[in-house]
C-alpha cells in the first residue's frame, strides 16, 4: 500500500483511497477480490498482491500512459 501513497506524493494527478474491505465488503465483491491487497485503478482491477515497485507502477499506470 505504501507504494500507492508514494505515487500520490509524487503526482498531484494521483489520489489514493485505502479501503478496509471489512467495512465495505461490497467493494470486494464488485472487483472480484481474491487476494489482498488488490489495487483498482480508475475503477478497474489493476494489480493483485504485494508487488515490487517496478511491476506495481507498470501495472497501475499501463492503461493510462501507453507504457509497455
Amino acid at each position: 500500500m505504501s507504494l500507492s501513497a508514494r505515487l500520490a506524493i509524487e503526482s498531484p494527478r494521483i489520489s489514493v483511497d485505502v479501503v478496509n474491505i471489512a467495512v465495505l465488503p461490497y467493494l470486494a465483491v464488485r472487483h472480484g477480490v481474491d487476494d489482498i491487497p488488490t489495487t483498482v485503478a480508475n475503477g478497474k482491477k489493476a494489480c493483485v498482491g504485494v508487488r515490487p515497485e517496478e511491476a506495481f507502477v507498470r501495472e497501475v499506470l499501463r492503461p493510462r500512459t501507453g507504457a509497455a
Partner: protein
Amino acid sequence: MPSEPQQQRVIDHGVRGLAHPVTLLYYTPDVPSTATAAERAMLEAIAAASDRVHLEVLAEQWDAAREERVRIARTPAIVVNGAQDYGIRYYGTPDGYELETFLAIIRAVSEGHSGLSEASRAAVRALADPLHLEVLVAPT
C-alpha cells in the same frame, strides 16, 4: 488506546523520528459507534506517540458539500496530510497488519517525497489524466 502492548510498540516505532509534521483529519459521524470509537482510539494513540502527529477529529453530520470539497467518499474517513494534501484517504480502522501500513503512509507523507526510483518517477510524469487508486486491504 491500543489493547495490546505489542500494538503500542509498533506505533511508537512507526512514528519515531518523523521528519516533518503530519495531520490526521478524522471525519466521523456525530453519533459514535463501537467501530468509530475503536478507530478514534487508535488515531489518538498514534497522535499521542509523536509530537509531530496532529489529530483533528471532525465528528459532524454528513455534509455532502463538505465531503465533496475535501474529497472523501464516505465517513468515517481518515485524511493523511503533510506539507500539503496528497490525496490520500483511509477508510476503516488501520489495525492488525494494516497498522504498519498506515504508519508507513504517515512516514512517507512526513518525508514529503516519494522515494520512488527515477524510472517510476518518469512513468508518473507521463501520466496525462487523473488516476484514482483504490487499495483494498483487510486487517489481518
